[in-house]
């Protein structure tokens, strides 16, 4: 049997969810018997292969146009899209920005902090354009499995991936793994 291929990517994220993936410790070896990890922000290969992957994992919120592009690319190239973490599922800590508004947040961060001298809001064309409202991934692309948590515990991720590999969709997280914090 050929191995399932997993690719991961992050949007507006802190990397905590990826740390949690690595926190599986030796269980990663168990997974690697039936799974091949392809691209991730932590590997040389950053983008999921055009040939497609079985499971795409996205962490982080959608906060700018760049995030939308990354989310769409992953959606196009994976069979099952998993939103991992509170940011990817609900908007999470990034969505705290919604409480003040994007423009006010940019002004505060780049112009008004106590240590800012000659501040400038970055506007390089290489950067994504910040959105007015931060959301989870679901409003942008169809998500198949949601795993909230800040971050989701390694055991919860292992459980969810194992369920997927066993062909059980939707994944119903047991209470011990279903956490918002």
């Amino acid at each position: 049997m050929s191995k399932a291929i997993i690719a991961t990517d992050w949007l507006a994220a802190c990397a905590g969810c990826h740390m949690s993936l690595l926190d599986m410790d030796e269980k990663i070896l168990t997974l690697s018997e039936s799974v091949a990890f392809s691209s991730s922000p932590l590997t040389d290969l950053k983008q999921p292969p055009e040939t497609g992957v079985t499971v795409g994992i996205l962490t982080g919120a959608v906060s700018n146009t760049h995030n939308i592009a990354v989310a769409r690319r992953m959606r196009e190239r994976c069979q099952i899209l998993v939103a991992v973490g509170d940011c990817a599922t609900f908007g999470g800590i990034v969505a705290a920005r919604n409480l003040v508004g994007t423009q006010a947040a940019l002004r505060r961060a780049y112009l008004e902090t106590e240590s800012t001298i000659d501040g400038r809001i970055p506007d390089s064309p290489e950067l994504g354009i910040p959105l007015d409202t931060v959301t989870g991934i679901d409003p942008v692309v169809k998500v198949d499995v949601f795993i909230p948590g800040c971050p989701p515990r390694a055991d919860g991720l292992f459980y969810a991936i194992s369920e997927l590999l066993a062909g059980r969709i939707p994944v119903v997280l047991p209470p011990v793994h279903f956490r918002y914090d």
Partner: protein
Amino acid sequence: MTMLTLTINGQPVEARRGQTVLEAASAAGIDIPTLCHHPQLKPIGACRICLVEIEKQRSLQPACTFPVAANLVVRTESPKAVSARKFALELLFSERNHFCMFCEMSGRCELQQLGYRYGLNHFMYPTYSRQFPVDTSSSHITLDHNRCVLCRRCLRACSELAANHTLDLCRRGAATMVSADMEAPLGQSSCIECGVCLDVCPTGALFDKRSAFMGKPDQLGRIQSVCSQCSLGCGIQIVSRNGFTLRIEGAWDSPVSAGLVCRKGRFDALYDDRVRIDSPLMKVNGEQIAVDWARALGTTASRLQQVNAGAMAVLTTTRATNEALSHLAALFLDSLGCFNAGILNKTAPALPGPGARLCDLSSSDCILVIGVDPARDGPVASFFVKRAVDSGARLIAVGRRCGALSAYADTVYEIDDVAAALAAVGAARKPIVIYGAAISRTTAAALRRLPEQVIFLPLQPGVNTTMAASIGLAGRADITAAKLLYIVAGEENQDFRWLLSGIRADAFVVVQASHGSDLTERADVVLPTAAWLERSGHLTNTEGRTQRVAAVRKPCGNSKQDWEILCDLGLQMGLGIGDLKAAVPASASHFG
């Protein structure tokens, strides 16, 4: 009492007429989720989480307000009910800030629990994230409107339980906010910081400042005890982590206070920053030095043996437990024959009859307050009085001592008009007289002449004053002639100048105390004692009810419990009161 039978989830359930579907279901062990409902508060059916399907009803009905009726057929988990509940929940989550990862309440939040129960793993609707203020103006309470679900529990508790009517709602629709005194900052409002709103808030909208972000529920210890700050003895839960006390919560099952605590008991007691005494001290060549227990007790014992009973005086704080008071009496009054003993506060006289309890106030039609300021001396008693006034009881205050409660009084009589006040009370159906130590002998005599339907509720000053009085310790001892003075000061926090000025210059003074004061500075021997969080035993409250207090941590440094010190002293003197150690219930030396 009419019983009737209804069917819930196919199961026949017995219920009393007048109960709600929710009450009938929970009595039968059937779980219906709730959010705005709180067992101590009147149901209002605001949140729609408890929606159930009831046959022959046009729409789903909130179980918390729907009255039971014979042959009602209720389904709590029908697909229609569950989907409506989930819909209500999704709408609640889509408004304001319900991100758990940076919320103090995460782990004990009822909204979060519902999210888990209904598998809410992403938002179904675009979120509405208008920013609301966070009110930190109160010294102990944070009110974060962004986390509020408008369940109205806080304002109902403020009105129905504390009867303070500070909190209400302002504005409309999605902009509705909990508001103190028509949008005043909480810290500048009529809030008295009893904190009952903290105990009822289901989310992180209202939380205690001191303990915020100091631990998740599974890291915290919780011990049931009784407040030791006044003579009421309200039930409390002491929440701590690794021996550090985080906060005090009210105990809903307390037979005295039914969940209420006041600012003194909930907050102030935890902010005591006086210096602790953690080792026995002795004056050597005019200077106090730290010594071991053997030397301190040996010196005290030999001094006690040198002085005859007539030249001794004993004073005790009423913060001492029943165990400490009985050991004190056994050692000094019974064994040593000392007859000059008293307490560090006044005592309200005993009046005839079985005596009222705080909970009786709710069924009283006329309450007289005389010689005491309940809002200051036993704030929870004043909550009960205001509740009675809210439900129609007449409040009569006599004299200026009645303090803040006077504002709620129907009539305030001058002390000279006490006869008129008593006449009004005598004419009532179920009158209760709340009185304190400040009543004169004449007034006490007049109270004794009231008709027998009048019942009395003393509000004793101090803490364990009722127990002290019952073993003959009431009023102050005459200390002016004493050559040896033994003072159990405990954690008494008062101005001791009245006492110090009366002590003979050559008197030998032994003080049992937990904190340093001008009194301990004068002492020849200081024996360090455990403070309220460190001691266990029993307290008898002003109603005469004896309740257990629990220790949540070991005594500070080398300090010991009051009763233990007295036992050891007795042993040292060969008086055999050490046997009493066995009389202290085993539970009293247990650190939970």
